[in-house]
């Protein structure tokens, strides 16, 4: 007897959604290429080999590199303090390291802009209002540092202490153990966190546009919104996609072939904590500085401007924006989870090349810079289904496809924890495969599905560039509210939007920290 997986396993309700996702992600990106190659050859070469493109590339890469350096300077010491020293209040410090995630990038940029200058909170300090590279660099670093912090902390906590003992018994001093054993083991965590940060910087639109620093994203927006040069916009999007692809490949190369998990199976002890001694005061100083810049500054700035008077009409606008935001984010969350469930199920229960491809495509949609993603959807709908252009439906679909990867992770974890035997037991008691799933496995997945839905909902709520390009006329989301007002230096108008966004985003932080205190953020799943 032999068992071969074949078409017998091809169930439309599993593969149908996966196929829809593949079409939804890949076809619009195809149209991006089609659009880029419209126009005659001489004009194309003029567009591609422009000096401006080289400057945009330099700016984009320079910003990415700068943010990676500053986030490392923030995250490495903070993770080490929390994981390996006897510093007090570790839970609080961990929260401090993660909370900047609750501050969307453009709110961080807003906080930097609104707290400085002549009327800002810090006006007494005569700080120049940050803009350009420095402004974008500070705002992006402060808000993306948690990605690196969480990964490094998890890696430090997960490091097998007997490896360090082994190195010491082989004649290595404490400092050498750090260099030859600990640091090499942090590499995967650093790459995973660094990749997330790089993807955020490449895809960022809100921060660079508020700080008026010309990266690819900002240029795409200018080209699309102001110059109406669609072909050049398509080219810029393709260039940004190539940079993103190159970074993804680089990360894969760097991690490939190296394994860092423990090889042994015995119970691991916990690492010994080093005493801070006379470094205690500098350590608290560092933590205080990071905490006040990443968490206190945005919160106090928002409250400061809120206190400076907001008119009643602003509150009406806020309510309106909240309703608009939810009208798109809620259905997007439902659709994303409905698509994520079969894809995650295939990946966990019927792993194959095909199921891996389905997952990869979902991740591709997530890694695609949102402006390029939105632009691809515009070209696609204008060509094939103009009635969808600037409709709420298209916005919802774009959200769902872009944030699908965030929904797959929690569903997959939940599936790993739901024993496959339950399904088999339900089958042996006379249920059809689909019934067996809904009666047996599904109830165990509810928690994971809830988390997935929350992730997508909150991410869509914060989303700016996709909303900006795809929203129907008259649609005004919370994110657009902050961005629009901050761009015109109407800081007190932006404050209530920023407050609502920070409050809702802190739910994400809570969800991240809730299940597993040692959780790391993998770029994909």
């Amino acid at each position, binding site marked *: 007897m032999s068992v071969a997986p074949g078409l017998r396993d091809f169930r439309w309700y599993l593969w149908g959604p996966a196929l829809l996702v593949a079409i939804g992600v890949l076809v619009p990106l195809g149209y991006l290429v089609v659009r880029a190659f419209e126009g005659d050859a001489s004009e194309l070469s003029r567009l591609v080999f422009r000096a401006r493109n080289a400057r945009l590339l330099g700016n984009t890469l320079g910003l990415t590199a700068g943010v990676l350096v500053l986030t490392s300077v923030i995250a490495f010491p903070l993770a080490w303090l929390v994981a390996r020293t006897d510093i007090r209040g570790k839970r609080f410090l961990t929260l401090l390291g993660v909370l900047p995630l609750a501050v969307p990038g453009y709110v961080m940029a807003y906080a930097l802009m609104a707290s400085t200058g002549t009327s800002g909170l810090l006006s007494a300090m005569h700080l120049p209002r940050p803009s350009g590279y420095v402004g974008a660099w500070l705002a992006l670093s402060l808000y993306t540092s948690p990605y690196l912090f969480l990964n490094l902390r998890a890696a430090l906590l997960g490091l*097998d202490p*007997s*490896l360090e*003992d*082994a*190195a*010491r*018994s*082989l*004649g*290595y*001093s*404490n400092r*050498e153990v750090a260099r*030859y*054993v600990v640091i*090499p*083991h942090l*590499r995967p965590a650093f790459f995973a966190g660094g990749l997330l940060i790089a993807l955020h910087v490449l895809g960022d639109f809100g921060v660079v546009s508020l700080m008026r620093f010309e990266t690819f994203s900002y240029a795409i927006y200018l080209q699309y919104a102001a110059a109406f040069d669609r072909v050049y916009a398509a080219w810029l999007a393709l260039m940004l996609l190539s940079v993103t692809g190159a970074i993804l490949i680089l990360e894969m190369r760097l991690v490939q072939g*190296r*394994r*860092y*998990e*423990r*090889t*042994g*199976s*015995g119970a*691991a002890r916990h690492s010994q904590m080093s005493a801070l001694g006379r470094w205690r005061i500098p350590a608290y100083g560092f933590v205080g500085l990071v905490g006040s810049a990443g968490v206190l500054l945005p919160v106090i700035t928002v409250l400061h401007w809120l206190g400076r008077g907001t008119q009643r009409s602003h509150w009406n606008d806020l309510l309106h924006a909240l309703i608009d935001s939810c009208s798109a984010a809620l259905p997007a969350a439902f659709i994303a989870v409905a698509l994520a469930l079969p894809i995650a199920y295939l990946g966990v229960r019927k792993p194959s090349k095909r199921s891996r491809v389905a997952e990869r495509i979902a991740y591709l949609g997530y890694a695609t810079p949102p402006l390029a993603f939105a632009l691809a959807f515009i070209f696609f709908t204008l060509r094939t289904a103009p009635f969808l252009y600037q409709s709420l439906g298209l916005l919802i679909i774009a959200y769902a496809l872009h944030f699908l990867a965030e929904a797959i992770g929690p569903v997959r974890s939940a599936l790993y924890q739901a024993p496959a035997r339950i399904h088999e037991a339900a089958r042996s008691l006379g249920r059809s495969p689909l019934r067996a799933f809904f009666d047996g496995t599904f109830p165990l997945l509810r928690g994971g599905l809830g988390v997935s839905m929350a992730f997508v909902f909150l991410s869509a709520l914060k989303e700016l560039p996709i909303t900006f390009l795809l929203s129907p006329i008259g649609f005004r989301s919370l994110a657009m509210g902050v961005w629009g007002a901050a761009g015109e230096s109407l800081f007190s108008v932006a404050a209530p939007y920023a407050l609502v966004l920070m409050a809702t985003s802190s739910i994400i932080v809570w969800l991240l920290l809730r299940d597993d205190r040692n959780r790391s953020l993998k770029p994909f799943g």
Partner: protein
Amino acid sequence: MPVVNGLSFEVEDGELFALLGPSGCGKTTALRLIGGFMRQDQGTISFDGRLLAGDGVFVTPEKRGIGFVFQDYALFPHLTVAQNIAFGLRKEKPATKQERTDEVLKLVGMEGFEERLPHALSGGQQQRVALARALAPRPRLLLLDEPFSNLDAYFRNEMRDNVRAILKEEGITAVLVTHDQEEALLFADRVAVMQSGRIDQIGTPEEIYMTPRTLFVAQFMGQTNLVLTHAHGTTAESVLGKLTLHRPAEGMVLVAIRPEHFSIRPTADHPDAMEAKVLERSFKGHDITYRVQVGPVDCLVHTHNREPFAPGDTVFVRALEPAVVLDKAGV
């Protein structure tokens, strides 16, 4: 409560010494103290005439020159087999490093695996690489923390014999920590049996097994019959009749007799033989265990002969070896 208390033992040069005890008895703590991964509150640790810890001295692990084989092997997952082994040789010249790496790889029978990563090795192979890595810098003392416990039974015996042969051949002093009495008996020249942070008895495997000092040692080292006797000099009166004692004692003492130290016969062939009734028979292949009733007590008897007794039969049992007098403190 200290984890280990009043622990005192000396290991001879070239000796294989085992710390044996149930889990939680403090044997791993003792080993980690010797390795320098923990500090004791009181007492001293010396090696080769050099004070390592205590009296205000603490030599860090990297300066002790003591090798350690960990229970979970602790191979560096990011380094190849060869790099793992050369890890402790970084102060050597490249040629010496290469030579020594090859040498220990050959010693543990892992030639040809130089470029493998630890994940691509089986448990037994990882174990051998861990041993090779610890041996490479030529430590004068090797500490082994339950090194065979993660291997399956068949492989465990082979590895144990292998490692023992290598250590003997290289003349290395070693301290092994284990909870498996058979492993301790087969591996070590001398065994220290530990319970709740202290050593009950130190001796050769034969001494430990044949003449346990305490009730704990007697029971931990295998099945045993315990009898309260009335002792007078080297003999004692008991429900099992007249017993010879391994050392003189007076008054009420608890004695232990291993089940295989009894003879079991269908007829009374000796004046000291006691009549007994077979209660239960367990056939285990190479031997048979009978539970017999002698007077008011049950008694276990191992026998190799195939005399086919059945429950209910009348038999005659007699102690062939002197009964072991157990310390009163241990009762």
